[in-house]
């Protein structure tokens, strides 16, 4: 087994996940509703339905609830958090960080680092890597990293079927306090413009087929392969795997290409019923997996952010998980909490009606 590699991100002090929490809003828009309006019901559907935030919800409110769930599981004093970081593509403000509201809401202020992170769908895992660094270097005892989104899909575009809402919060702390140890991380990044939104544009644009092989598949495959090679592991060494999930087919295909089975990715594959939660996607796939994981389970997580890049994590669950899972709402409980809405209600809730 390889001991080290200069490109592997491993902190000096071992770190792990001390607490975690998910959040998914209750509203659901079935994909067949989108098809009813845009294609007369024709054509294949990429998922069953997606989660839609309510009128008074946004990345701030959702992050606060996920953060509170993480605090319940971690059972730590919020003033011991030395950073509160939120990654999203849909921060409510362009300037005024989500993180300060979350930090204040959970009682982490004022002696804390706070910042908003951005890199399309991997903004949350970026915050997680940074949290590993803050704690692993001894700069802080605990750091919180959140990935949360209320992604907007352009009306009538293919992505409207899947642009969902949700995410997860993680408290990173010393490995010996953790319910899951983060053994190492690795990031793979290139300049690949597969999906973007210019400032002042309401909706993102994308490069259609260019978002596949040269973007999603290339970066996830490179990140996973690099991490596993440097760690001396193969797909068989992992009990579970979570890949970024913009739709159902992509993560299933990349899992197969990397040697993972359908069973390995099943607990973390949520896109079918909540949609693509963008910066929350890999994060909430992991919360759902931790909800059912057993001590000793090894987990591979690989996010993907357009623009483009992937963060990969090699995680081992400890025996502390058993006592902590039940201390807060589980991911599947949020998913089961469901109120179906129609396209008109969705359009109103998502502010797509021109009111002026």
């Amino acid at each position, binding site marked *: 087994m390889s001991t080290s590699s200069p490109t592997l991100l491993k902190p000096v002090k071992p770190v792990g996940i001390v607490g975690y929490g998910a959040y998914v809003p209750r509203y659901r828009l079935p994909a067949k509703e989108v098809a009813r309006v845009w294609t007369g019901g024709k*054509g294949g559907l990429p998922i069953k339905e997606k989660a839609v935030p309510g009128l008074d919800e946004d990345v701030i409110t959702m992050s606060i609830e996920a953060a509170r769930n993480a605090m319940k599981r971690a059972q730590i004093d919020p003033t011991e958090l030395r950073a509160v970081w939120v990654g999203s593509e849909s921060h409510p403000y362009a300037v005024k960080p989500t993180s300060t509201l979350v930090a204040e809401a959970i009682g982490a202020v004022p002696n804390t680092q706070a910042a908003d992170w951005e890199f399309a769908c991997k903004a949350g895992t970026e915050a997680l890597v940074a949290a590993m660094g803050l704690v692993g270097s001894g700069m802080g005892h605990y750091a919180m990293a959140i990935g949360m989104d209320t992604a907007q899909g352009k009306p009538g575009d293919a992505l409207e079927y899947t642009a969902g809402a949700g995410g997860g919060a993680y408290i990173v702390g010393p490995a010996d306090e953790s319910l899951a140890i983060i053994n190492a991380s690795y990031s793979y990044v290139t300049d690949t413009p597969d999906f973007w939104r210019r400032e002042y544009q309401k909706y993102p644009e994308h*490069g*259609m*087929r*260019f978002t596949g*092989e*040269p973007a999603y598949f290339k970066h996830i495959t490179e990140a996973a392969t690099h991490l596993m090679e440097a760690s001396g592991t193969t797909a068989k060494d992992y009990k579970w795997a979570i890949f970024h999930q913009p739709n159902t087919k992509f993560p299933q295909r990349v899992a197969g290409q990397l040697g993972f089975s359908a069973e390995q990715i099943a607990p973390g594959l949520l896109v079918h019923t909540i949609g693509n939660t963008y910066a929350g996607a890999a994060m909430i796939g992991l919360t759902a997996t931790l909800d059912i994981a057993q001590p000793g389970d090894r987990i591979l997580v690989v996010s993907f952010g357009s623009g483009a890049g992937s963060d990969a994590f090699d995680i081992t669950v400890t025996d502390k998980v058993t006592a902590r899972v039940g201390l807060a709402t589980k991911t599947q409980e949020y998913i089961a909490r469901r109120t179906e809405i129609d396209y008109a209600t969705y359009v109103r809730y998502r502010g797509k009606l021109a009111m002026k």
Partner: protein
Amino acid sequence: MTDVVIAGIGQTPVGEHWEISLRDLALDAIQAAHKDSGGLKPQALFVSNMLAPNLSNQAHLGALIADYAGLTGIEAITVEAAGASGGAALRQAYLAIASGMVDVALIVGVEKFTDKVGPSVDAALSTTSDSDFEAVQGMTPTAQASLLMKRYMHEYQVPADGFAGFALTAHANGANNPHAMFRKAIKPETYAKAEMVSEPLNMFDIAPNADGAAAVVLTRRDLLPKDFSHPPVKIAGSASAADTLALHDRKDILYFDAAQLSAGKAMKQAGIILDQVNFFEYHDMFSIYAALQLEAVGFAIKGKGWKLAADGGIGLKGRIPSATMGGLKARGFAGGASGVYQAVEAATQLRGQAGANQIAGAKYGLIQSMGGPASTVVSHVLQGLN
């Protein structure tokens, strides 16, 4: 007049080459053909391309590619006839050699679809129809072909899935072509379950847009060295015909007049009759076009082109093997390069180098390059000289 022969062939794989530029694709094919010809230096370059000014903001490809290939000083132009650009460029090069004014001509067909994505590609393709009277009404080439297919199926009582034979044959042959985009045979069930794109055309009735470049070096037979490494392939017949551009101006929309005219002239020039054609490379951008080409050229009677494919008549062991290396459907639709890919593949057959797809004893191949619904059709008869 000495024979006009193919001295060198080259091609890139056809696919979505996100990372390879237009000029690099062309250069790859040119270098391969140049090497294959034993290093013959051309005095003229004919580039065939459909959409570069639109998709890559790049016109003036003759100068660009001559320069990029280290051929500044020679004459160089682009030949454009929509999907028939490849065949048309081949013909221009043929005329140049046959006239005696050019000793060695290089043809390179190149298309880079992936410089744009989405509706702008459909808009670009629509420029090949009548812009003022067809495209402006929202007619895309796919929609146009689907109207033709619907009428054909109605007139000739073609059953659902009647056109499956074209995709099945193409994919089976593409499986043995290392340069093809799709290299796996498909089952009839796959065709039957395929999603409709523009009813009745389903996903497997339409050749996929893709990037690629193919090149051919033409010269006079007496200029080939004695120890030339390949069996020479002669251009025995070459002819082109244009029909009305707009489909609605045709006398009979279900008969590809220009295909019959150009194929007839080319075969007459070659001194052969239909029965002597050993294989046919048609322009199967849509399965309906392949059926109509088979009928117009005479391999099937009117209304029975689909049946020829359904009954295996176009398979490698059939009466008239077609799309022997995958056709446009499995090779991929490389736009203006298609006609040059046809020439490269036909030459490969006639040199006896087609591997698992070899037509035993192939002596004459008919290649037919088409623009629109046979608005321009360029036919060549290639002959293996052994």
